[in-house]
């Protein structure tokens, strides 16, 4: 059942993880690891269960530091990390027709759909639940992220999927406090001003007062990047029915 985003009723990330691992068989639940600060999930989970399923989306465009970090995490925690790659034919077709940097011209959706969403969708079809590092403070589009939700994007009526977001209520500062206190390894790009880490051509370091979302797809207008958001806010203020783009 989907919870509402409610900081007052949030449980600790460890309690959420424990609950998730007790409800789903080890081969039916996995952590999605982006190679960034969501490493804290692996650290917490490794203390709770012996059998841990972790996957990472390798878009083929990650920073070298991220590949090295994924390897470091594999060794540090002794976990297998499944690296999911996009369908080479689809990548080839896009690159042949549009080049290697089509996202700067056409927007990032097509490339992200091929390099991230498709492999993710394929993987999620084998699971009953997945665990993400999504947090409410990461983006204005994430302010409603609950700790536990029915995944409407990838689940279906016939094949329901649960999305578990143990860190939903944590701030970036809390995540970093945990990383320091527990001496969790982290991606060295964070020390170079990268708050959010994604693909190399689409991620940049941000200034001290910039939001982490500003480090992604910065060439796209905010309204496109946060698709549907403005309509949603406007609609919520002015009418009882709102239709999201």
């Amino acid at each position, binding site marked *: 059942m989907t919870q509402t985003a409610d900081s007052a009723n949030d449980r600790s990330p460890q309690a959420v993880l424990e609950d998730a691992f007790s409800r789903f068989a080890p081969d039916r639940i996995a952590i999605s690891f982006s190679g960034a600060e969501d490493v804290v999930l692996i650290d917490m989970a490794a203390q709770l269960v012996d059998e841990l399923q972790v996957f990472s989306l390798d878009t083929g465009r990650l920073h070298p530091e991220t590949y090295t970090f994924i390897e470091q995490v594999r060794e540090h925690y002794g976990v297998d990390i499944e690296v999911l790659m996009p369908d080479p034919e689809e990548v080839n077709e896009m690159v042949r027709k549009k080049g290697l940097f089509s996202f700067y011209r056409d927007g990032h959706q097509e490339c992200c759909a091929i390099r991230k*969403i498709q492999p993710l969708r394929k993987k999620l079809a084998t699971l009953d639940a997945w665990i993400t590092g999504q947090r409410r403070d990461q983006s204005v589009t994430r302010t409603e992220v609950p700790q536990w939700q029915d995944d409407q994007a*990838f689940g279906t009526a016939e094949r329901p999927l649960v999305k578990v977001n143990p860190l939903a209520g944590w701030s970036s500062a809390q995540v970093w406090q945990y990383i320091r206190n527990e001496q969790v390894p982290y991606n060295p790009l964070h020390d170079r001003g990268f708050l959010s880490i994604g693909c190399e051509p689409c991620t940049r370091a941000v200034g001290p007062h910039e939001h982490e979302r500003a480090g*992604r797809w910065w060439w796209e207008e905010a309204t496109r990047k946060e698709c549907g958001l403005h309509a949603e806010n406007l609609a919520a203020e002015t*009418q009882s029915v709102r239709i999201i783009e």
Partner: protein
Amino acid sequence: MTITFVKKILADGTPCPKCQDVEERLHKGGHWDAIDETLIADERDPQSPGMHLAARLGVTRAPFFVVREDTDSGVEEKVYTVYFKFQKEVLQQQTKGSDEAREILRDNPDLDFL
């Protein structure tokens, strides 16, 4: 069976790009004739026919399709807010995985930020 297509006009008076895209795909795929009725959901006018229908059905996304069918127990209404599901189930058309992925991403803008 009757099919209603509801497309949105944004609060600034411009057509919703996703609705335009879906309409274009219906035309390109030769499915426009399957649509019996097109309603406008104008965000500036909660009484516009599309907004009215959305309110009645509790729909919060656009574009959307309403498929009405006569059954033994009366008229059954099915709402589709995801185009590729509508394509597959109602138009019985094969969809490309990459198109489906794009639609998932467009409906869930957070997913790229993984």
